[in-house]
């Protein structure tokens, strides 16, 4: 019986005779392992990093967003009895004025209304605007304050104008008793000029950083006035460029902090931006006239529903919930009406769910890719061990003549396969960890660059790299098993070599 130490020495000596082939087998195993180890070391923490940094507060805390289901048959009223299931499938197909009226009647609801398709507008339509805060009476002050808390900012907000988009200009007034905007009877300046529009807009200066990270002191410090002014200048310069680009592009992205979102979907936009927006809409309108579009085909779901809304029907809506009222209770009520309701909480859950789905897919792809490479490596291990057996026939005969048992020979060649597999796995792990570590540094640096607020920075980890030790041990054990399987056939062939034939020299 060969001692274990001697067995390893014999292995290494024999592998030394086939250096290139052995190295090739080791590298191919390592390649498969690198992918798997790098993904396993990163994916979970990377998901957490995305959850922490990507969760944006684009749904206000007191807002429930409503969407209609694509398929009217998807909806089943909760707690509906079996025999009533057919009858109670859907109370509302699309969001209608009746649905909004029902929602407004709920005691928890401050406002409920629909968004409207954005259509063409003229610049002249934008000029008729309130000139100061005192004239902004049409907007519920309570809601305006949600976004513009500082009285000075409130005055600044008055320099913005409500967006006036639609087929025709109307003057709106807010009816507190109905909790909604209606078309004003008078032509007073105090009234809001508007059309049915939903937009979330803001000013580009919201992107201006307020803090900077001092690398030497390793701490955040507030930016000085001069530094902020410089940034504002930079933003203005980029806006000039963007304005030119906007005129000729077919899409317009309005980015930045929300400065106004009112029930009835009136939006506050600074005048220059509104004018820019109007130009863009005019251009789009012109383009749409050049490219004639056909009416979308109306899809019928049996007798109960349609896919395309008609006049007075909407696919989206917003409910503003009163302070102190339960948002989830309102969302649940909305769902009971047969709509999809999204709150900040459910949006977060959906984000996490989507991320988890993506993580699962990434893992599957990475592990599948790794498995394919490991499968190829397994084949290469088999071929390398087979080649070693073929090249070692004379030695096998000699070893048998000198007293090696069949088991000794089998173990010798199995050890060779396992040694190659384990070496490849270890190298792959080390390189995989190295790759993951660098990706982690890059990801953290990118995330830090994207975040300008120290509060957000607080929740950001220093690294997304972690060594999944149980997984690595499992991988090593798996590599050993796979190597044994790959080496079993050639090792058996070696054990069964006839020493008489092997020692014969023709």
């Amino acid at each position: 019986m060969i001692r274990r130490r001697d067995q390893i020495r014999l292995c290494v000596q024999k592998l030394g005779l086939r250096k290139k082939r052995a190295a090739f087998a080791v590298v191919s195993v390592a390649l498969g392992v690198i992918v798997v180890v790098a993904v396993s070391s990163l994916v979970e923490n990377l998901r957490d990093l995305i959850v922490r940094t990507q969760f944006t507060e684009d749904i206000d805390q007191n807002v429930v967003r409503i969407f209609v289901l694509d398929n009217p048959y998807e909806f089943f009223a909760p707690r509906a009895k079996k025999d009533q299931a057919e009858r109670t499938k859907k109370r509302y197909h699309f969001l209608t004025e009746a649905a909004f009226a029902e929602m407004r009647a709920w005691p928890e609801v401050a406002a409920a209304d629909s968004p409207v398709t954005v259509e063409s507008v003229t610049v002249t339509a934008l000029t008729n605007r309130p000139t100061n805060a005192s004239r902004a009476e049409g907007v519920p002050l309570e809601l305006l304050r949600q976004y513009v808390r500082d009285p000075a900012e409130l005055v600044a907000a008055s320099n913005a104008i409500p967006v006036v988009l639609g087929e025709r200009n109307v003057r709106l007034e807010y009816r507190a008793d109905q909790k909604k905007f209606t078309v004003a009877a008078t032509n007073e300046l105090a009234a809001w000029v508007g059309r049915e529009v939903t937009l979330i807009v803001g000013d580009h200066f919201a992107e201006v950083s307020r803090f900077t990270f001092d690398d030497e002191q390793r701490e955040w410090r507030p930016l000085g006035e001069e530094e902020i002014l410089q940034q504002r200048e930079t933003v203005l310069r980029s806006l000039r460029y963007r304005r030119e680009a906007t005129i000729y592009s077919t899409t317009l992205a309005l980015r930045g902090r929300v400065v106004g979102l009112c029930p009835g979907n009136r939006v506050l936009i600074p005048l220059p931006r509104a004018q820019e927006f109007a130009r863009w809409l005019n251009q789009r309108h012109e383009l749409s006239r050049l490219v004639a579009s056909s009416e979308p085909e109306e899809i019928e779901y049996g007798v109960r529903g349609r896919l395309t809304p008609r006049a007075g029907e909407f696919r989206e809506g917003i409910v503003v919930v009163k302070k102190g009222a339960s948002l989830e209770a309102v969302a649940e009520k909305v769902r009971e009406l047969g709509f999809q309701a999204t709150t900040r909480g459910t949006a977060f859950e959906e984000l996490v769910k989507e991320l988890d789905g993506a993580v699962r897919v990434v893992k599957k792809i990475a592990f599948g890719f790794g498995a394919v490479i490991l499968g190829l490596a397994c084949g290469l291990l088999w071929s390398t061990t087979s080649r070693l057996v073929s090249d070692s026939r004379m030695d096998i005969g000699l070893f048998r003549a000198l007293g090696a048992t069949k088991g000794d020979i089998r173990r010798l060649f199995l050890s060779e396969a396992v040694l190659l597999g384990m070496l490849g796995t270890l190298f792959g792990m080390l390189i995989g960890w190295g790759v993951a570590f660098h990706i982690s540094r890059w990801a953290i640096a990118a995330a830090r660059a994207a975040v300008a607020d120290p509060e957000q920075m607080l929740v950001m980890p220093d690294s997304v790299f972690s060594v999944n030790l149980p997984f690595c041990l499992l991988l090593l054990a798996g590599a050993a098993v796979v190597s044994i399987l790959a080496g079993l056939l050639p090792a058996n062939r070696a054990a069964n070599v006839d020493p008489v034939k092997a020692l014969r020299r023709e």
Partner: protein
Amino acid sequence: MIRLENISVEYRLKAERVQALRNVNLEITEGSFDAIMGASGSGKTTLIQLIAGLLTPTAGNVVVSGQNLRELNDRAISEFRNRTIGFVFQFFNLPSYYTALENVALPLVFAGVGESERRARARQLLGEFGLEARMHHKPDQLSGGEAQRVAIARALIGNPKVILADEPTGNLDRETGTHVLELLQRVSRERGVTVLLVTHDEKAATFAQRIILIEKGELA
């Protein structure tokens, strides 16, 4: 010491049945130096392969040191070869990746002997054979005579009872061959090891105490 009882060895060569040995009865005493002579293909090598347990006879029994080789399993027969038999081949069969010292110590690897002991015993044997200066040389750095002396040292390292030398001078010039045969003779005499020399060279056979002639698978 070695007893061959009614040994027959038959094998198939394509469709043809070949009788390598036919009703061979032979007894070899302990410590003797016997030569087996015969033409090529007469069955000389088959005979020593039977004694080493590398080949199982179609009929008959091979008994070495009271052990009937037919009754031994793979592990036992490997142990028997390791402890009882020493091989000397015509082409030396020294793995090129081992030094002379490692080659000599090789049988002890399969006996599970520790490295330091292996090296000490191999060093001592190589010293006895005048190869101290060559012990760290690889086989391709040795002359034919030196390589065969290393092979004899390897055959002796496990203190075997029998040395089976298959044409040990076949690949050497006459003078070197004579030195090798003298060494085998000395080993047999001084250590009491049974040496069975397979040769077709009449001059080499003269070193043996007894010459066993074999013709077409039968003892003459």
